[in-house]
């Protein structure tokens, strides 16, 4: 019982060009925003880029490993809290024995990735005993546990969340300026995309994709799939943690609501909406999701009607997600 159609290898130069175009387009947002005189565009673009990183991370296990995880919001939140707690200690509001008091991103971001990756590895060891719908539900269970743990942690704000005022730095330079921070996020996304693309094309990626299609054959070939899946899950968790840390940094705030299971579901929707077969698919999904939500919710209190309708329309008409539109357009362009 496979859950997701595992993607065939697609490391063609067209894909790489696609990624490059996407990154360049994202990098142009501040310029456009300035031309339009609307600084808020950068904030919404920051949100898109951060969720895109989380969705790309999820897609490593979802699209290429065939594992539908509902605990990625939890991992995202762990990353966010690592940064939040580290920075809030500078304000003197909270204290933590295991985390340094620092707002230096060069220290905190790798730390957030390490903690989230470790948490993912621990959960993966247990969750990967199951498969299919059972895997979905056991990861949902882990997500709920993480959520309630952070709700219960009153010293870090509980349900109110954790605010911090400390200025964040990158190698000693202030990093919270809106435009530089945005460029930093785009750079992180570009690195993640490039890394994922290489990983998928490598032997590791081939085995991971094969494990999603036919685990038995893989075992017969003498390759035990579990270590590969576990490694992918931990790596995916680490990158989700990175996204969470960037999210906390962008808002100077993190709360358990960012790690609810609904948020995990939203990440899955972003992946499927964009397209699972491509490393960059989830970026398009995240863009469509965040932008639509922001635009529609300003129009009417019944915005979820249109939002739900849009999702249904995409699943019914485009089997490969929104990225199919890009492919169709590209093919059409070449034919003419």
């Amino acid at each position, binding site marked *: 019982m496979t859950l997701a159609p595992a993607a065939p290898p697609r490391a063609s130069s067209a894909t790489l060009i696609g990624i490059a175009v996407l990154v360049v387009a994202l990098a142009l947002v501040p310029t456009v925003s300035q031309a339009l005189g609307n600084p808020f565009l950068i904030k*919404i673009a920051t949100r898109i880029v951060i969720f895109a990183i989380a969705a790309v991370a999820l897609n490593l296990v979802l699209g290429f490993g065939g594992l539908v995880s509902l605990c990625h919001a939890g991992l995202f939140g762990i990353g966010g809290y690592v940064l939040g707690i580290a920075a809030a200690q500078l304000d003197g509001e909270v204290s933590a024995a295991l985390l340094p008091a620092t707002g230096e991103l060069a220290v905190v971001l790798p730390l957030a990735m390490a903690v989230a990756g470790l948490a993912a590895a621990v959960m993966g060891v247990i969750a990967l005993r199951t498969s299919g719908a059972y895997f979905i539900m056991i990861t949902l269970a882990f997500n709920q546990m993480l959520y309630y743990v952070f709700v219960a942690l009153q010293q870090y704000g509980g349900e*109110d969340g954790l605010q911090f005022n400390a200025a964040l730095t990158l190698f000693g330079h202030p990093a919270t300026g809106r435009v530089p921070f945005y460029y930093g996020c785009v750079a992180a996304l570009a690195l993640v995309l490039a890394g994922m693309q290489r990983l998928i094309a490598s032997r590791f990626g081939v085995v991971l994709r094969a494990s999603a299609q036919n685990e038995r054959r893989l075992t017969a070939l003498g390759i035990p799939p579990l270590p590969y899946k576990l490694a992918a899950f931990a790596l995916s968790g680490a990158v989700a943690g990175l996204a969470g840390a960037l999210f906390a940094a962008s*808002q100077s705030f993190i709360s358990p*609501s960012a790690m609810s299971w609904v948020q995990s579901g939203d990440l899955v929707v972003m992946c499927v909406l964009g397209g699972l077969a491509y490393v960059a698919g989830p970026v398009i999904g995240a863009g469509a999701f965040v932008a639509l939500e922001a635009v529609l919710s300003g129009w009417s209190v019944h915005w979820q009607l249109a939002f739900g309708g849009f999702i249904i329309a995409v699943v019914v008409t485009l089997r490969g997600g929104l990225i199919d539109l890009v492919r169709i357009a590209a093919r059409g362009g070449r034919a003419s």
Partner: protein
Amino acid sequence: MTMIASRAATAALVVMCGVAALALPHAARADEPIKIGFLSTFSGPQGQLGQELFDAFNLGLKSTGGTLGGRKVELIQGDDQAKPDVGRQVADKMIESDHVQILTGIVFSNVMLAAAKPTLDAGAFVFSINAGPSQYAGKLCHPHYFNESFQNDMLAEAMGIYLRENSVKRVYLMAPNYPAGKDFLAGLKRTYKGELAGEVYTAFGQLDYAAEIAQLRAADPGAVFFFYPGGMGINFVKQYAQAGLMDKVRLYGPSFSLDQTILPGIGDAAVGSFASTFWTEDFDNAASKKFVADFEAAYGRLPSTYASAAYDGARILDAALKAIGGRIEDKDAFQKALESVKFDSIRGHFKFNTNHYPIMDSYLSEVIKDAKGRPTLKRLELIKADQADSYAAECAMK
């Protein structure tokens, strides 16, 4: 050449701006509408509360002729989905994209905590018509932050006073396990001080309370104080009545657990329970009567205490802006006008404390059936006049 041209252009521009500034005194500015961001919870199970506030705020605006201090109003609506981070993002959008001057409408304290900071940092006003977190009443109090509804703990403190003064023994406390739930129970304990028969926190959004109600019955308390807003309140009160406890152990709660956002969903089961409140549907001042009649005519239902605060909210803004000729751009003047605002509150009387939270009269009310057979709150007695919140002393503004 180009340098000269550009310098000339700059000079022309400066002159034009100067002329424009001279030609456009305050009167011309008054043509621009006042921009208000109405950030509230409009979707999901709690969407009812945002709509209730929005309807009542609009009704309040209608009662002032659609203007505030004589100026037109542009209301920009946003949905926080009851999520703090979404609230913060929409607040950012309202400030940077829509250039709102006032942010209002927030239902939940945790959304307020997330959204107020960027709003205040940007120099705009936060004017709460519902959420009343203790942080902004105390340490975080801010010249541009006003709350005209209540501070979370106040109605619980009022009920504690009532229960203590009437020697109600062995009170059993119940609330959801989230910050406002803890605020309410802490508020009650601050003033009640008697022996408690039990103190139980349940999961937020819990549907079934049979197990907790069985424990409650076994503890044999003298009374129950509970705080369950929204759907949780409907579930709890229905199940409490079905367990046959309604006529054995009396239910006491703040009005948020027993007002018109909840009573219609419960039906008759809540009749005979008691709520502490700052307003009920049967207040007999003229402004309140007009509010209830207009609200019912406009929306076909009775207004809740949430609605009463939102309606007064629009009228406070109008009164304060009238006093300064609509000049909301003069922030100091607007702040002072709000601090000393005089208006015809449907609560009877109203004023702001030094921390910009209300000083209010708290009443005891009972759930009864009105002439049309609908469950409503009936005012019984004044519990405490001029009640202030317990955090004002921590606020540096004097």
